[in-house]
Each structure stands twice: as structure tokens, then as C-alpha cells.
């Protein structure tokens, strides 16, 4: 098996039910080594539930998981030593300094050399926090320290749940660069969940779209780019009449009405003139007609049938 194709995490029919709420509904996942997975979904889609199952904080109701090819309670527990994770808000010792937090983590992980603490703090830009207790840290600084805690053991698989929450624009860029750097230089596999889809688009190499506890789609960056279909963005004085015209005159239903009234037509991409003429003949006032493509955000909402 090629190293780059090695599956480091696999879920089969993974299900999690909380009383009457089905948080994860028989999901199947296969994460390959060396990729940066963007975990996409609305609040309550099941992203954090899936992460909790992987990290051992929660137990599946049904289905199975395998980490680095090993499954079963004991083996999964053992393999978790090879991963790093930050679930939701960073779990930090608030009365301790950044160095002391990492020292506690170093002791727990059994890392012999203390040098890793300074190096990791430098990596996340927290070298100069001195004796400042974590309770006095800003949200962004806590987020960085949470990432540092997850990175300390040089993990093979790093799970970051909303890692850019609370970061300022420069912090977001730094974390993005850090993920890329760690992925490319150390070959770390990432599973990153984020609500900021355009940000995720700049980091991820693969995407997992989750909706209401189900995996809607698992696709690579290339597949996404292919699927983020180009379309004709039509802006007229009457969106409803525009859709009727498209259906009756151009014989297509392959369009979508956006909240701002723009109609996205996915057909007739090579024949904009014909579209313009049809709209004009229907007495519509066309204020905009241009060729455009979906962003990751657009694609996601298109898939879940929202907005």
C-alpha cells in the first residue's frame, strides 16, 4: 500500500444517538494519510460528535471505527496516543502559564525532551508570554495554546475543532500557514472543522460535508472545483418571472434563486446571448448577466438545499 494512500481513520456505519436525537446516522468515512480534511456542516450537523467519538470522549451507539488500521476498545485507546486534538474550546489549566500547560502535557505524554515546549510555543507564536497565567490570555492566545497542546507529541493525525475561533485576521493567516506547513513538511493528516468555509477552502485538500448527522459527500479539492459549477448569474426586475421564462422559453429547470433575487442558471453557459434574448422577449428588465462560479460556501448550501 502506498504511504499516501494509507487509511488512518475509518468509520463504518458509525451512529450516535442521544435519547431521541440521532446525532450521527450511520456515517462511513475513510481518511487517508497526508490529507487536510475540511469537516463542514451547520451547527448540530454532527461534526463535534464525530470528533468526540474519534477521540474517545464518547461511545458509538452503533457501528465501528479503526485508527491506523486498529479497531476494538483497547487498540483504539492505544492508537489515540498517536493523535493530537483540540475539541471545541481549548482545554487549558487556567492558573498555569503557557509553558506550565505544555509541561503538564509533556509529562502526561511521556515526552523525554523539554526542548519541544519552546519549539512548539515558537511555532504557534506564543514564545513571549512569560509568567502570564492562561486565565489572562485573549481568546486567540488560548486557541493558539490549545493547538500547541495538540501538537506537542508530534502527532500523525491532528484533529482541530474550530481552530480559528476568536483569532484576528493575521492569526487566521498564521494558523492557515501552520496547518499547510505541518501537512507538507511533517506529513501530518488534519481533520479541521470550521464554520468559515472560505477559510477552509484555502487549507483543505479534501472535504467531508455533513448534514443532520449524515455524510452528504466526501470529495477532493479537485472534485469540488469541478462541482462548483460555473453558472450564468441573472439579475432582473422580477425573479419569479425570470424562472418562468427560463422554464418555458429555455426549457430548463437547472437554476437556483438566491436570497438577493439573483437567478443562477447552470445551463446555456455557452449561449448567453440566447438567454438575454429570451429574458428580453419576456419583457424583463435585465440589470445583470454574467458568467460566475460557486464558492465552497455556495456549493455547501446548494447541497443541503438551504439559502
Amino acid at each position, binding site marked *: 500500500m502506498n504511504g499516501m494512500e494509507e487509511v488512518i481513520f475509518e468509520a463504518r456505519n458509525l451512529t450516535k444517538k442521544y435519547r431521541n436525537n440521532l446525532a450521527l446516522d450511520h456515517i462511513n468515512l475513510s481518511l487517508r494519510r497526508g490529507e487536510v480534511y475540511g469537516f463542514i456542516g451547520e451547527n448540530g450537523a454532527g461534526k463535534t460528535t464525530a470528533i468526540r467519538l474519534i*477521540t474517545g*470522549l464518547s461511545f458509538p451507539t452503533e457501528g465501528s471505527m479503526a485508527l491506523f488500521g486498529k479497531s476494538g476498545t483497547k487498540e483504539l485507546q492505544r492508537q489515540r496516543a498517536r493523535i*493530537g486534538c483540540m475539541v471545541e474550546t481549548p*482545554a*487549558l*489549566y487556567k492558573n498555569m502559564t503557557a509553558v506550565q500547560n505544555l509541561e503538564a502535557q509533556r509529562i502526561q505524554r511521556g515526552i523525554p525532551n523539554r526542548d519541544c515546549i519552546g519549539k512548539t510555543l515558537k511555532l504557534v507564536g506564543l514564545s513571549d508570554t512569560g509568567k502570564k497565567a492562561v486565565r489572562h490570555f485573549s481568546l486567540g492566545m488560548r486557541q493558539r495554546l490549545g493547538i500547541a497542546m495538540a501538537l506537542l507529541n508530534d502527532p500523525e493525525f491532528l484533529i482541530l475543532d474550530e481552530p480559528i475561533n476568536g483569532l484576528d485576521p493575521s492569526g487566521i493567516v498564521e494558523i492557515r500557514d501552520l496547518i499547510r506547513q505541518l501537512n507538507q513538511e511533517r506529513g501530518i493528516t488534519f481533520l479541521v472543522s470550521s464554520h468559515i468555509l472560505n477559510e477552509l477552502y484555502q487549507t483543505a485538500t479534501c472535504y467531508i460535508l455533513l448534514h443532520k448527522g449524515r455524510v452528504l459527500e466526501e470529495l477532493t479539492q479537485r472534485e469540488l472545483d469541478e462541482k462548483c459549477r460555473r453558472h450564468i448569474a441573472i439579475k432582473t426586475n422580477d425573479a419569479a418571472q425570470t424562472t418562468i421564462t427560463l422554464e418555458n422559453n429555455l426549457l430548463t429547470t437547472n437554476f437556483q434563486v438566491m436570497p438577493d433575487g439573483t437567478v443562477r442558471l447552470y445551463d446555456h453557459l455557452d449561449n448567453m446571448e440566447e438567454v438575454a434574448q429570451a429574458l428580453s422577449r419576456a419583457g424583463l428588465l435585465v440589470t445583470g448577466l454574467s458568467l460566475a462560479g460557486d464558492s465552497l460556501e455556495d456549493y455547501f448550501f446548494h447541497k443541503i438545499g438551504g439559502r
Partner: protein
Amino acid sequence: MGKLLHTEWYKFVHDKNFGALSIAVVLFNMIMLSGTSVWDLSGQSALTECMKKEIATVLLACIYGGISLGGDFADRTLYHGLMTGRSRSSVLIAKTIVFTAAANFLLFCFPFLLILFCSLKNGWGTAISAEHLLHGFGVVWSLLLLGCAINALPLLSAVCFRDIGRTTGIPIVLYFIMILLLNSPHTAIWSKILPAGLLILTADGTISPAYGILAGALWFAWLTAISIFTFRRAELR
């Protein structure tokens, strides 16, 4: 387990709350006993007297339980161990060992200082023989195990509720219920069952140290076992 214990010890050493609570325990007890004749008692009598006034100290130990155990659950710092490949039982046992030792220190630091002071000032009260030393050794173990039993209440509460408020509050309520039962018409029965009563009875010699050791160990083992059982099955956030 060694690494988990080392981590818990490291956290304990850097916990400023413990130092503050230790000072508070000593000061609070000194204020409570100021003006009383306890300072003129022999070491042996001082032991009995101070055990009767352990209530306030137990409350402070409960607060420490809330901060230490409840805080670890609320901040999710206890879960680091799980994510480093350790079993839930090992993580909780390591936490229990360090917490119980620290909470027992809070419970018995003032009695120890008081007995030491009274013994040096007024003598022990009886002639010290090998038999007395053996009995004293038994009493110390009995008190320590009963302290462990009392401190296992915040542990169970922390595992069940996983926040600071209820981890602090529920053991305090339970302790007050214990005191109420000890003052009920059935005092004789309750005092031989409940750790708070056994603490006093062991100190004043009403029950044998062996009985105190057995009861303390059983209470501690039972409460810790329920805590571990609960934690092993808990859905953590």
C-alpha cells in the same frame, strides 16, 4: 499510571488554591478555638476535641474538591489523559490518589498542629507504651481512611455532574445530612455507620481503630468504585 500520577502531582504543585485553602483551614480553626480551653488540654484530649469540630474543615475540603475535581471536569483538562491513550480508570485513579492525599492534608493539618502543640505544652495525657503507640498508629490510619471516605463524596459528585458548583455543593449538603442523622434519635446507629460519626468515635476511643479502618476502607472503596464505574461509561463533552 506513573505518568498520570506525575502529571497530577505537577498540577497540584502549581495549584495556588490549595496553599490558600490550607492557610484558611488553619486560620479558621484557630479563630474557632480561640478563647476555648482546648489549648490547655493534653494531646490525647485535644485529638478528641478537634475531631468534634471538623465540620468547618470538611466544608473547606469540599470547596477544594469543587475547585480541583469539578474544575478539571468543567475545563475538560482531565480528558487530556484519555486523548493520550490512557484508560478512563487510570485517569480517574491518578486524580483520586492526588486529590485524596491533598484533601486529607486539609482535613488533618490543623488537628495535627493542635495535637503537636498540646502534646508539647501539656503532654500526651497518658503514659506512652508500645501498646499505646500501636493503638495510636491504628487511630491515625483509621482517621486517614475515614478522611478518604469523606473526600470520596466530592469525587463521586464531580464524576456525576462534571461542574464546579454541584461538585462543591452536593457533598456539603450530604455532609449536613450526615450531621442531622448523627443528631437524630438513632445517633448510636448512625454514628457507627457514617464516616463523620466514626471520625469522632475513633478519636475518643469509643470504637476500635480496626473498626474505623474497616469502615473507612469500605466507604472509600465503595464510593471510588461507583465513581470509576460512572466515569468509564460517561459521555464526555
